[in-house]
């Protein structure tokens, strides 16, 4: 069903993907016919989410509906959603669990799991979630099952899928087809930036939010250049000629072509998102889960394309937010039921339809809704992920490496040679992972 690409994770072609989806859907339909187990006593779960249940946005409403679906089928289990900002969720969970006051369940950003496992705040799920699942059910996940397995234990489940590197552009100001190469993009954007008097391409190098605004496009650019983020032996895979290319590209965009402003060192993902929503830049690279937010401001004027690379589009950088049970959890059975419900095809379909989040399950994609114009953005992402996948598992201390790479890029902006800055990253990384 899957085949290995050199230096990459499992490859999924479209046919395999859709076949798996159909098989998974059938299995899950059969499985859902059995009644769910109920708990004997009334229990309460505390769920930390980056989405505020009182907020009026689509993503919060969708999560509320997913939780409601669970509580309707399990009235004996109350769920209290406590919002925590996504930028500090990882740290807060670890601190909470270590202090003995952590949540039962938490939903975290894709890079956070290795550190949750390393810090001992995540609880193993082998005996809690999906105990009786068939292999077909396990194969129903879009992202590799092993991505969240450590020492043989499933430590989390993907709450959604994410395409980290979508190229966004303002349609009314960027006419024509988006080039797939860096050179083509630069030539294409230069006259448009001059014409509209705004940056042609915007990104952010801030270390805030674990520097995801930067690394979400940098990592697939490494792959496209023939470099790696981290090698199988745990060393940095970008301290070479190929790894230097993405940095040279962004430096040229700032210093030579003047398509990107030189104040990007301070910009965060939220700054870039706001700038795009306010039409302050012609293009950027952002993640699939915030397309709906931008579209609410830009409507059809938001265009999506594949991330340009050195010789063609970069591979899709597919990841996902995950949901885990913490070691503070005293109601493991209820927590297991909750996680199963949140990642169930029904919940995932709700999230896709209401929040336009990519589902974590293949079988959901077989729903007719995905053929409607409403699902066009999701279909774009699914096609990109299916055609040029490059799944990989984040290493431990990845947040450190991400913020360290952003600092290196900031140093390059102020004149530090690329090689020297990357050598410092490699030294710090070796020191960090070896204690």
């Amino acid at each position, binding site marked *: 069903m899957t085949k290995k690409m050199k230096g990459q994770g499992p490859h999924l072609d479209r046919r395999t993907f859709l076949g798996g989806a159909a098989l998974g859907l059938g299995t899950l339909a059969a499985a859902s016919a059995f009644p769910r187990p109920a708990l004997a006593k009334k229990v309460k779960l505390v769920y930390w989410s980056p989405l505020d249940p009182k907020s009026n946005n689509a993503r919060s409403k969708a999560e509320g509906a997913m939780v409601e679906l669970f509580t309707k089928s399990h009235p004996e289990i109350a769920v209290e959603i406590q919002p925590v900002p996504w930028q500090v969720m990882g*740290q807060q969970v*670890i*601190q909470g669990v*270590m202090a003995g006051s952590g949540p039962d369940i938490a939903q975290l950003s894709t890079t956070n799991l290795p*550190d949750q496992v*390393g*810090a*001992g705040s995540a609880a193993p799920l082998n005996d809690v979630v999906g105990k009786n699942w068939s292999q077909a059910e396990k194969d129903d996940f879009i992202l590799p099952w092993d991505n969240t397995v450590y020492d043989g234990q499933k430590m989390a489940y993907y709450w959604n899928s994410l395409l980290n590197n979508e190229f966004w552009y303002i349609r009314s100001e960027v006419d024509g087809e988006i080039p797939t190469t860096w050179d083509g993009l630069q030539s294409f954007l230069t006259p448009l930036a001059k014409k509209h008097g705004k940056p042609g391409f915007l990104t952010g*190098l*801030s*270390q*805030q939010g*674990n520097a995801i605004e930067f690394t979400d496009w940098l990592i697939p650019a490494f792959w496209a250049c023939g470099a790696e983020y981290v090698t199988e032996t745990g060393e940095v895979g970008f301290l070479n000629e190929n790894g230097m290319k993405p940095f040279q590209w962004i430096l040229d965009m700032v210093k030579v072509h003047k398509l990107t*402003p*030189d*104040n*990007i*060192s*301070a*910009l*965060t993902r939220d*700054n870039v998102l*706001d*700038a795009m929503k*306010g039409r*302050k830049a012609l293009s950027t690279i952002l993640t699939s889960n915030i397309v709906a937010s931008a579209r609410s401001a830009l409507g059809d004027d938001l265009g999506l394309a594949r991330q340009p690379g050195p010789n063609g589009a970069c591979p899709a950088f597919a990841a996902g937010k995950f949901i885990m049970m913490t070691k503070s959890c005293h109601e493991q059975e209820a927590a297991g039921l909750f996680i199963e419900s949140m990642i169930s095809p029904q919940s995932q379909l709700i999230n896709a339809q209401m929040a336009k989040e990519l589902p974590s399950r293949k079988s959901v994609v077989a729903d007719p809704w995905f053929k409607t114009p409403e699902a066009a953005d999701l279909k774009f992402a699914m096609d990109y992920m299916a055609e040029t996948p490059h799944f990989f598992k984040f290493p431990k*201390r990845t*947040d*450190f490496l991400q*913020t360290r790479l952003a*600092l290196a890029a*900031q*140093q390059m*902006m*102020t004149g530090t040679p690329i090689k020297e800055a990357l050598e410092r990253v490699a030294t710090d990384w070796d*020191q*960090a992972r070896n*204690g």
Partner: protein
Amino acid sequence: MNTIVSRASPYLLLTPAAVIIFAITLYPIVNLFWIAFHATNYFQIGSFNAGANFFSLFNASGMRSFVATAIFVIASDVLALSLAIFLALLLEAPLRNRGLLRTVVMVPWLVSQVVTALLWQAMLDANFGPLAHLAQVMFGVSFAPLGNEFGAMASMVIANVWRSYPFALVLMLAALQSIPSEMYEAARIDGATRWQEFRYISLPMAGQTAMVVLILLTFEYFTLVTIPFIMTSGGPNEATYLLSLRVWREAFTNYHFGYSAAAGVVVFCLNLVLALVYIRKFAVKGGADVQR
């Protein structure tokens, strides 16, 4: 028996407070030193590693934190205290609506650090900030202070001073008000100018209070995390990566508790030196000296 009880009773009465102080103050400090001298892996404390955790504080990146902290603390101290003295003198003068003015200048004190940071970040936003808009409309230039090293530090200092000067102002105003008016009257009879009144009466009389304010502000600035975390996240290029932020980030982003504890020890020692100055200069000499 009664004598023993009466002698022991003060100590017995102090015991609950002593236990609490030990638990919430002394134990964490001792533990901080313990961790600082040990290897760590996430939350696991490993073997004794002498001062290895301190070495990283004295590399190029660490030194930038020392420099950034020094610039931030000194600039904030000077500006906050100067502004507080200036406003205290102004508010001490017989102005119309003086009560209202005193209330208005105190408003920043009511604003939390998080809100202060977000407020200034929004004000200075390169795309949507009002200052950027004004700069673009009036002078046709882009204004992005948070995007360069000098601008980021300057912005952070301004935000910090804006938030903290009311505290200094309250104390300075109280000190000025406690100076007997006869001294000013006598000086005027002798032909002193306003500047001479300030130079030879106000400043010496309120000088002790200014020193207290300076030391208290320095304590606070040394341990400030919220404003740099939200406004600049330590950037660009570690120009605003204060020691306090390093303590936090090493612990809760990088999970290097040994390094974090080492940085915490350094911040603690710097504050301890200040505290000793404070105690020696004001507390030991007795309450009379502290009153102004």
